[in-house]
């Protein structure tokens, strides 16, 4: 099959490549660009581990063609914070134990990111609804909800953080 050119902005950097049209966005990010922070869980559009932001909206990147992101802005977990400069949502998940194995966490954090951009001070109902496309098999969600609420506070204060031992 003939390859085609795709270009998009990933974490504020222009990226392009020759790809097979059937390449999924998640494979483009992980395999072409080496951004393995985006996880692959179910591969069947159910779990949300592969969530990335496409023009600011959370999508399941295992169910989007790379070509559907042509000319758009993609944000992955690597794009919102680093070990030296954690995003407040990352900091909040860490402090409130919003993760155990961490597999769902990049997706949870990006879905929370979209939510907090739209609603800086969400209540529990709104948080649960916003995360209803993201499954977690470890935490039972309680600490995830706490983390998002705490993230909302940290964002208001403009607080970011540093991972222990980083830098």
């Amino acid at each position, binding site marked *: 099959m003939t390859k085609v050119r795709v270009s998009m902005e990933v974490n504020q950097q222009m990226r392009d490549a020759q790809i*097979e*049209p059937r390449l999924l966005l998640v494979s483009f990010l992980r395999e072409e660009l080496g951004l393995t922070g985006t996880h692959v869980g179910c591969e069947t559009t159910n779990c949300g581990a592969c969530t990335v932001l496409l023009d600011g*909206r959370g999508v399941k990147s295992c169910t989007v063609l790379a070509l559907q992101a042509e000319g758009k802005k993609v944000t992955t977990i690597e794009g919102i914070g680093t070990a030296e400069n954690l995003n407040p949502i990352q900091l909040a998940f860490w402090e409130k134990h919003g993760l155990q194995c961490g597999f769902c966490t990049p997706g949870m954090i990006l879905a929370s990111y979209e939510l907090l951009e739209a609603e800086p001070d969400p209540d529990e109902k709104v948080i649960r609804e916003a995360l209803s*496309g993201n499954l977690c098999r470890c935490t039972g969600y309680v600490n995830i909800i706490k983390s998002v609420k705490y993230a909302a506070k940290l964002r208001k204060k403009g607080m970011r953080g540093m991972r222990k031992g980083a830098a």
Partner: protein
Amino acid sequence: MNPKSFEYHAPKSVAEASSLAEEYGMDAKFLAGGQSLIPLMKLRLLSPSHLIDLGRIPGLSYIRDEGNHLAIGAMERIAEIARSDLVRKQCPILSQCAHQIADPLVRNMGTIGGNLSHADPTNDMPAVMVAAGASIVAASGQGSRVIPAGDFFVDTFTTALKGTEILVEVKMPIGPTRRGAYLKLERQAGDFGIVGVAAVLEMSSDGRCVAAGIALTGVGPTVVKATRAGEILKGVELDKNTIDRASRAAAEEAQPSGDLRGSAEYKRAMVEVMTSRTIQAAARRQAER
């Protein structure tokens, strides 16, 4: 899990998309949000050799108030419909339906045009369109035509669209005398429903129901219009006895089959319960504008 290889086309106009569909015939599929199509392609249940992406055609995403109806572009995302203040105020049934489809991530990609064209009997939008008597605009290179929603859904995964036709717009009737609701019974958040019911009532100023449309999700080969249920509500006051009779009629008109989500008997019983709740929810609504 990857789809089989295909050739990708990104037409810039409806006419161009239509002529590509004509050229490749049965080997081609239109791609909208991909939230139904891509999962099927990954499972290799469908393997079109040509994919015609409607996503780069300008001017297919909008929600406009046109007085007696809302005009919604086919590529409008379900999430935008769920978020829209205009839809919530003018057409709460559509807002309510959009909120209950899949999860926020799927809704960010999935489109109204795809939800209708896919014609899965468990897709939620079709029942709302049929109950409201909406119109669907189909276009090809040769011009466009308007298809009443009641004639649009032919069978499972089959609509009245010709292979070269693209769904371009939905016209959703609105007005001060209309009350609508869509309720859905689901096993878990974000799942397809077990049963869904759409009810749209046309109310007179003295509180009588002058016309009613009832349509059912998930209990037939395609959306089921509960015609008798609608007729029972017509011209009368919506007391408990009337609502009970209409709900029983809807349950009789349903054509459920048993599957993972429940037995046929169970689904029929749930149609009765959900129809009653939906009619009451619609009746309780304030005027839609």
